[in-house]
């Protein structure tokens, strides 16, 4: 395996260690070339076990007709060629149409949620940048949604969105009289906005945390110099703070996008095994296709398609944002 071949090479090259090619910093010091592989061994084995093998199996599954009859011995499931993929992307038939719908809902939801999380997080971080009374307390309060376990937080929102005894309807209908009658929030079209609210509530503190960390790295001299040149507060934010945060924001937006797009926990606790159509996020959709209708083959094909989409998006994003940066940074 990967670990043995370089170890042997190391033994052979050991006597002439100095002549060994390669970009080591101090060739004389590291005598055992196998050492890095030894350190990596546990991680490699686990990566193999929890990522690589499941991925290969997932891809194999996507080419099989894997219904509940074959779960006990999935190797014997008949091959179905590209059928699972064909069904998934046949947007005129029910399965494909539902998948496309779910995909579009997920894209819209993700863009809105990430945008709002970023806006709230950045604004809060900027407002909390200089010291004032109560700053430490606010900082701690703002991190609570992020620190709460997902199910505890989301279940509280479920309670607030209840039709008869929830806070949301009480405020909107009974107190502010904004609606004619109490609305349903966890079914029907409103569910999209309910999901978005919960997702932003839970997610924005992460943006806040990262932007705060990024702000600490901006040298104070930049602001002093700008102030001497007569730049006002808003100008400083526009000309110094935001440009300096660019690399931070690039990582942050990518991570937020991937987490939100792949989020399963929030919709699952909010709606249960089958989400309303308006809030049918792709993770739950695939879960439902696999574990509720028991068609693992189609579910796997959908997972692979989702993965390909994410790879393309991430690749494009890295390409667009890494201009002018060393490729080693990733």
């Amino acid at each position, binding site marked *: 395996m990967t670990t043995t071949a370089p170890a042997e090479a190391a033994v052979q090259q050991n006597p002439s260690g100095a002549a060994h090619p390669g970009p080591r910093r101090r060739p004389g010091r590291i005598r055992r070339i196998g050492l890095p592989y030894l350190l990596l061994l546990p991680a490699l084995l686990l990566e193999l076990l929890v990522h690589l093998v499941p991925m290969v199996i997932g891809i194999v599954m996507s080419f099989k007709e894997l219904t509940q009859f074959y779960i006990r011995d999935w190797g014997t499931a008949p091959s179905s060629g590209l059928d699972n993929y064909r069904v998934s992307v046949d947007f005129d038939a029910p399965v494909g149409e539902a998948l496309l719908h779910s995909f579009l809902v997920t894209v819209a939801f993700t863009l809105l949620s990430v945008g709002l999380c970023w806006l709230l997080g950045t604004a809060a971080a900027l407002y909390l940048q200089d010291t004032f009374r109560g700053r430490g307390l606010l900082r701690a309060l703002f991190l609570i949604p992020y620190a*709460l376990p997902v199910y505890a937080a989301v279940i509280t929102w479920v309670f607030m969105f209840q039709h008869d005894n929830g806070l949301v309807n009480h405020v909107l209908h009974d107190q502010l009289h904004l609606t004619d009658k109490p609305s349903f929030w966890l079914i029907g079209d409103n569910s999209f906005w309910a999901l978005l609210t919960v997702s932003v509530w839970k997610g924005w503190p992460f943006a806040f945390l990262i932007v705060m960390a990024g702000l600490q790295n901006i040298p104070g001299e930049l602001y002093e110099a700008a102030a001497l040149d007569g730049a006002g507060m808003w100008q400083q934010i526009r000309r110094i703070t935001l440009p300096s945060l660019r690399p931070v924001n690039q990582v942050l937006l990518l991570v937020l996008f991937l987490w939100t797009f792949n989020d399963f926990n929030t919709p699952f606790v909010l709606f249960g095994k089958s989400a309303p159509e308006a809030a049918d996020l792709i993770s739950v959709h695939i879960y439902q296709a696999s574990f509720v209708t028991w068609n693992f083959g189609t579910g796997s094909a959908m997972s692979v398609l989702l993965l390909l989409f994410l790879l393309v998006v991430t690749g494009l994003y890295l390409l667009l944002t890494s201009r002018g940066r060393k490729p080693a940074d990733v």
Partner: protein
Amino acid sequence: MAPPRSFFWSRRIFLTLLTGFVLVPVYVMVSSSLKPLADVTGEFHWVPSRLTIRPYIDIWSTIPLARYFVNSLIVAGAATVCSVVIAVFAAYAVSRYEFRGKRVFTVTVLSTQMFPGILFLLPLFLIYVNIGNATGIALFGSRGGLILTYLTFSLPFSIWMLIGYFDSVPRDLDEAALVDGCGPFGALLRVVVPAAIPGIVAVAVYAFMTAWGEVLFASVMTNDATRTLAVGLQGYSTLNNVYWNQIMAASLVVSVPVVAGFLLLQRYLVAGLTAGAVK
């Protein structure tokens, strides 16, 4: 330079609204957990008419909350320890040594972070079921199996963060230790790990929090005996009634340890994120 007046009033308005948005659910959780059942099944009231600590007593008998609590503790704790220990070694190798396949390894670790959990859920489910059928080892439904699946998200994140953090520990430190006769493991354990404690704490906190809150794998991979809090809390909804006061009380009970731990250690998390994610 004093900021303009507009800054102060916009800050006041924004922070007030945001604090309200953040705290309303927290208030609902706390106040509802102290109401009798009749009050939470009826119309919502901001101010509780009667206060009772009854829900906090009943939560333990309505469902086996203590057992779920212990299960969550074992699973999240073990997943955290495993991923941190393994990640420390791997990150040390990547940060300090040049070797063939290094780039492939880091790119693989980075990219597995973007994969949806659902992608691994189906195959792992099948692998566990089949291993169970073939060998009688019950991975499916066991805590061990769940711990293993939790490494799918905690391990790559831990490795990724720790590489960044170890890079920020000056190399001179562990090179001096090597010169002084420490082996590479000695240098790692005596110099690099102590210097990187904030980063390691950050990674551990993060890994524990995500494992404690994980729902997807927990809902598929557990049975009655191994159920974690994430799934177990659903038990407060019966056919006749949803015990909202108990749900809120239980949510609070399971949240307090993680939230307290997080708030205590968040300094480290910010420091870790600065070094790791925000280079």
